[in-house]
């Protein structure tokens, strides 16, 4: 699964740590999601979408391996 979390963060101008705090996970979790190493649960993905006030599909996208 691909995501453009880094870009979304840049637009909203918040750091990984700030985003992590908003959705109550650790900063490492945000980091591994951004680098594509970890696929978040639906609940966490929805929480992230809520922070950016954007539909889920604009942040997360299926890639050819899924």
């Amino acid at each position, binding site marked *: 699964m691909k995501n453009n979390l880094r870009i979304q963060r840049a637009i909203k101008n918040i750091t990984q740590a700030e985003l992590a705090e908003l959705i*109550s996970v*650790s900063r*490492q979790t945000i980091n591994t999601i951004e*680098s594509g190493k970890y696929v978040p*649960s639906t609940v966490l993905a929805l929480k992230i979408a809520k922070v950016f006030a954007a539909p889920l599909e604009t942040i997360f996208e299926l890639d050819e391996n899924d």
Partner: protein
Amino acid sequence: MKNNFLIPNKFKLLGWILFSTFLLFSIYCQYFDFEIPGFQLYYPADDNFISPSGYNLTNEVAYLGTILGLLIICFSREKNEDELINSIRLNAFQWSVLANYIVLIILIFSFYGLGFVFIMAYNSLTMLIVFIMRFYYGIFKLNRTDEK
């Protein structure tokens, strides 16, 4: 997502203290044949098969303490327990079950008789110990990639 099997983080320290104390105590009991005098519930009617000392509960308590300590370490939350830590935890459990049975299969073919019984007693701790090592290795790896 809530993982209901876990106990609060503050128990982790208690687990380590229990484990290290009782591990040392177990080793001491094992190699110096230490027994708390009179610490037993059952007395054999005749002692021609098992010596009366076989009924002393010192080594049982030492073993119980070690296992309880390890269990508490395994099942207490991390300070920042979230779903990523949870997935590392699950991965470590899968690893430890697999490692435990690989070790067990090797043991079945390499020990027999009373030696096998003794080795099995130690083997019962393998799963918990491998879990702890694999889990903390996972967290260590996570922190290391994070720093890059």
